[in-house]
């Protein structure tokens, strides 16, 4: 019994090392997030108008995608190898999901916007969770799960900016949002047959201001911490994702 107990400890420790091993998948799908405003690809030098008639420009747009996974023909979820991916509208990147060779069908894409509670309380991280990426509250520990910054003549702050830093991992303040998107048959076929294997997710910035809740820039020009207001924006941006109808980069 005594020996068994110590063996158990060792095996628990060992699994941590094995986890990184990868089974031999052959094919992959590249998932890209493409920021749009009013349906058009985001341009940082353009002035836009939201549904309340407020003008705005975008200077920064970033969010964490966590636990990205594709549903395949066997109705199983195939996960991305990396737990988190920081999407930054200024940097073109994609996340690769390796799917079993010969996958005939992909039906759904799911992910969360944000960083798990556990990863908010586990100290210094690296990679996409490196606090140097500026998606981290240093005075009230926790990740900024999504960030939208820009300028508007309707802003109430002296510099004319709006800064929405949305996060919260504790109890009622939790701002993590789960997203699940269906992939049409035509799109699934096109993706699996194409050479680029790109699955593009459009990310509509306009939804931040008006979707589940109406949130005018004139009424709220900044959010810099977790809480009830941050959650309103999280509700709104949880509706900003859709599978694109094209496969252009």
């Amino acid at each position: 019994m005594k020996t068994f107990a110590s063996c158990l400890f060792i095996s628990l420790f060992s699994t941590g090392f094995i986890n990184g091993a990868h089974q031999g998948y052959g094919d992959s799908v590249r998932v890209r997030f493409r920021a749009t405003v009013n349906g058009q690809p985001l341009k940082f030098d353009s002035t836009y108008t939201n549904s309340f008639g407020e003008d705005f420009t975008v200077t920064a747009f970033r969010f964490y995608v966590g636990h990205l996974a594709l549903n395949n023909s066997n109705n199983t979820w195939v996960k991305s190898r990396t737990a988190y991916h920081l999407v930054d509208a200024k940097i073109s990147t994609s996340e690769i999901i390796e799917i079993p060779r010969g996958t005939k069908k992909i039906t759904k894409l799911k992910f969360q916007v944000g960083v798990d509670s556990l990863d908010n309380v586990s100290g210094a991280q690296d990679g996409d969770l490196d606090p140097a990426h500026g998606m981290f509250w240093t005075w009230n520990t926790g990740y900024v799960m999504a960030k939208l910054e820009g300028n508007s003549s309707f802003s109430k702050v002296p510099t004319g900016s709006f800064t929405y830093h949305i996060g919260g991992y504790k109890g009622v303040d939790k701002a993590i949002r789960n997203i699940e998107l269906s992939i049409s048959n035509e799109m699934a076929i096109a993706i699996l047959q194409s050479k680029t294997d790109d699955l593009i997710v459009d990310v509509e910035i306009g939804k931040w201001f008006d979707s589940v809740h109406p949130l005018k820039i004139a009424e709220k020009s900044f959010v810099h911490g977790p809480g009830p207001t941050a959650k309103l924006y999280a509700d709104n941006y949880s509706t900003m994702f859709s599978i694109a109808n094209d496969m252009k980069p």
Partner: protein
Amino acid sequence: MMRRIFIAIAMIFCFGLFVFNAEIERLAVTPMKFPVPKGFPLPEYRFQNNPLTKEGFELGRKLFYDGRLSKDGNFPCASCHQQFASFSTYDHPLSHGFNDQFTTRNAPALINVAWMKELHWDGGINHIEVQPLSPMTASNEMAENIDSVLTKLRADNSYKKMFRAAYGDDKINSQRMLKALAQFVAMLISADSKYDKMKRGEASFSATEKSGYEIFQNKCSSCHREPLFTDDSYRNTGLPVNPKLNDFGRMIITGKSEDSLKFKVPSLRNVYLTAPYGHDGRFYSIGAVIDHYRNSVVDGPTTDSLLRKKIAINDDEKYDLLQFLRTLTDSTFIKDKRFAQPAN
């Protein structure tokens, strides 16, 4: 015998106290033991994913004393956390930062930090490894940004060497910097005061100290709980808010009105070295703090129930209490060369 061996093995694994570590074996590093003082509970920070090594500790020590972690080079961690003051700021109610600015709080003593669940007066920091990011990036403290600090470190060959010694290669990133700082700060253990010696049977209290200890146990120790001399909780001790600072403490973090004016209970270890007192350093002497508890606690909506009626301490008791608090000074700790500014 078997039973003892088993317990020893189980303890090593359960408590993660870093003896068995494949990574340590692979790297040519010198593992260090984290010494839990007799009578102390297990620490909150157990060096998970950050095995304590001589090389990591020394790197953390160099970083702690390095002004390059601040924008203008003048504000290393050690500028507000001075060893002779038990790693608090000597004689300053509020810390000074970049460009002649004041912060809004008194720098807390960095002792026995590994036993704290949360850090800062308001508990805003949930992990020892990420704490340095707060002063480093605050515009009225070190006023730097992380990338800029890393650029400065990468340009210095001595850092390349030390990162390689600690981590096996010379990659310098925020995670490695923060983990090394955590190793140094977590090692700032103070447990060698006269009080500790008395507990270990190596010293004995005078009659006055003994009397002071009894008064302490009756009237102070429910918040300043032994052996850490804090229960790590947040309480409103009936200090009226300073209208120029408007610091509402814990409420800033939780957003809850019931946390208004609550601050972390500070440890009383080395209390004679850490003046001034209070979250904003408004008390210049320990006597003044005791007088506050005797006479001037403000009974507001969140004032701690233990303090509502103030604490009855007469002048004789106050004298004895002060004599007892003197026994909490750990002179070994403040002279410990391992924690001093490194030579290079």
